[in-house]
């Protein structure tokens, strides 16, 4: 039996109960270990690190007993398997990293352990974080704990952080890390009814996180509440000399923003996000979000982000181009898989053919093409120029507003296999999330309601550079107005 009185606690609640000695860290971790065993059918964990978790929990109880509990002391987390963890298998959900055990720890995960958190295991994702449904994982698709009303079709948990979103929603960890290159935290969060925050580019160190598109990648928390995300980001964030794009500015106490007033806050509504074919219920939820913020005293301002429609095509040049460079390192020499060949070149070609899945190959080939002689200006340089224009759109908008409200995704969760055959239709999942990555802006997805099939939908807030604080304040206003307490019915416990 899973002790759901323990696994239903969020980070803030569990931390409070630990402080008051109402529960112990070992009890809490053990409850999650049972939940993980029962929940294996959801395919959320690639590697379970139960021994490490129990040791960590024991240490946490000792610290708590001495009154030396740190901000995340004893809180059991899942780590997206894109973060290097010392001595623990790290796969990026790719065959090409078979057997890879890093000799170092990523900065962000190290920050979490420094603050007392306990690692339950490594979570499933799309291969190298390339996908929007977790279906490109070498380890199989992570399954959404939510199902349509009266229908047991397996649904995707979003992607790329699909193992993270499914595990948090199903209570298989108290919270998880994600990474977001084009929506990979926010889209899966929206599809599973949890909170997902992509911080400003530079807020969290990228050191030790397997690189996909280095100018877009950013680590962030995936949690069951806005308060939990605020607590967790504070530990994850901070300057790191090992990442030259990490910023050296103060990390505020985000938890102080939760529940704060949004009176007078200027909220922008971008007219270009009303895309053709958007389901009426998504549009209605967006309007509901506007009303909630208005009722809380915010001022609603119509804005224009004229280059929005070009964000996705620009992204699908920039991200594959960077990926093709970053993934050049998987050559069968330094780590992971090697497939022999008659000479060095053939060994590279055989290794990469066997080690990469179809979507990763597609993106590496597209990236190679747009960077190749004769095409660089037409594709890559053009995309970078459009990226400038998209950033300028936001700069202009933020002269008159403090934050921007939009839906997170154009639809709720879809069925496993429904979009797998058409890369471009899969890419359209990220139409609302990609612009924030291109502009380096922080953005958060908050669960706001259920669609007609009983599946969660999210609302997204986009903020100014390094103004995560305002996002936490506005997100918590939406959270309390929405009162989203729906949970998936437990069907997965074998």
């Amino acid at each position: 039996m899973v002790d759901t009185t323990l696994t239903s606690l969020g980070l803030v609640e569990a931390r409070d109960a630990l402080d008051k000695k109402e529960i112990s860290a070992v009890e809490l971790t053990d409850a999650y270990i049972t939940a993980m065993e029962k929940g294996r059918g959801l395919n959320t964990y690639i590697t379970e690190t139960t021994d490490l978790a129990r040791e960590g929990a024991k240490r946490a109880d000792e610290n708590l007993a001495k009154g030396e509990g740190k901000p995340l002391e004893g809180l059991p987390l899942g780590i997206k398997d894109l973060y290097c963890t010392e001595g623990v298998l790290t796969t990026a959900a790719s065959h090409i990293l078979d057997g890879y055990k890093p000799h170092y720890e990523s900065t962000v995960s190290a920050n979490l352990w420094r603050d007392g958190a306990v690692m339950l295991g490594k979570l499933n994702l799309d291969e190298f974080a390339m996908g929007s449904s977790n279906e490109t994982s070498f380890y199989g698709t992570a399954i959404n704990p939510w199902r349509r009303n009266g229908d047991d079709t397996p649904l995707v948990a979003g992607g790329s952080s699909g193992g993270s979103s499914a595990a948090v929603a199903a209570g298989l960890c108290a919270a998880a890390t994600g990474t977001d290159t084009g929506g990979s935290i926010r889209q899966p969060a929206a599809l599973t009814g949890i909170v997902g925050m992509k911080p400003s580019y530079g807020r969290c160190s990228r050191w030790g996180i397997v690189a996909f598109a280095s100018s877009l990648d950013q680590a962030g928390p995936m949690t069951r509440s806005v308060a939990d995300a605020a607590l967790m980001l504070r530990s994850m964030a901070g300057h790191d000399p090992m990442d030259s794009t990490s910023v050296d500015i103060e990390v505020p106490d985000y938890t102080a923003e939760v529940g704060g007033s949004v009176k007078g806050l200027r909220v922008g509504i971008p007219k270009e996000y009303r895309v053709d074919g958007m389901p009426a219920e998504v549009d209605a939820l967006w309007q509901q979000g506007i009303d909630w913020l208005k009722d809380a005293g915010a001022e609603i301002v119509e804005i224009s982000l004229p280059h929005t429609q070009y964000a996705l095509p620009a992204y699908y040049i920039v991200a594959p181009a960077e990926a093709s460079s970053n993934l050049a390192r998987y050559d069968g020499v330094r780590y992971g898989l090697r497939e022999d060949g008659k000479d060095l070149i053939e060994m590279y070609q055989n290794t990469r053919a066997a080690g990469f899945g179809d979507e990763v190959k597609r993106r590496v080939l597209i990236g190679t093409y747009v960077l190749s002689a004769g095409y660089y200006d037409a594709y890559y340089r053009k995309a970078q120029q459009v990226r400038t224009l998209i950033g300028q759109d936001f700069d202009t908008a933020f002269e008159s507003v403090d934050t921007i409200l939009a839906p997170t995704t154009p639809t709720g969760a879809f069925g496993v296999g429904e979009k797998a055959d058409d890369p471009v239709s899969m890419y359209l999942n990220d139409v609302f999330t990609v612009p924030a990555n291109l502009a380096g802006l922080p953005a958060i997805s908050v669960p706001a309601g259920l669609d007609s099939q009983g599946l969660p939908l999210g609302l997204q807030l986009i903020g100014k550079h390094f103004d995560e604080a305002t996002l936490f304040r506005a997100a918590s206003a939406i959270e309390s107005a929405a009162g989203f307490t729906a949970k998936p019915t437990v069907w997965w416990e074998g």
Partner: protein
Amino acid sequence: MSVDKETVRNIARLARIRVDEDALEPLAKELSTILTFVEQLDAVNTDGVEPQAGGRTMALQQRADEVTAGGYPEKVTGNAPKSEHNFFAVPKVVE
């Protein structure tokens, strides 16, 4: 723009990914679909616009040019599929 079989063969060679002969044509179709999608950008006037290379939040920082890590070749080569005496081992490249 659509790419043909020969172009796919060439970029696969540049990317060091073996692609079997019968996979070239389907890949050409898939890549062409993606390229047609991204070519929407042709409609944007970008005359005189500076290309944005990085994450746009700040200029890259510099640090002192000094050694901050090292001295553990066994760790560096520890994950290699083949290594000898703390070197990465590869197929013979010099006759």
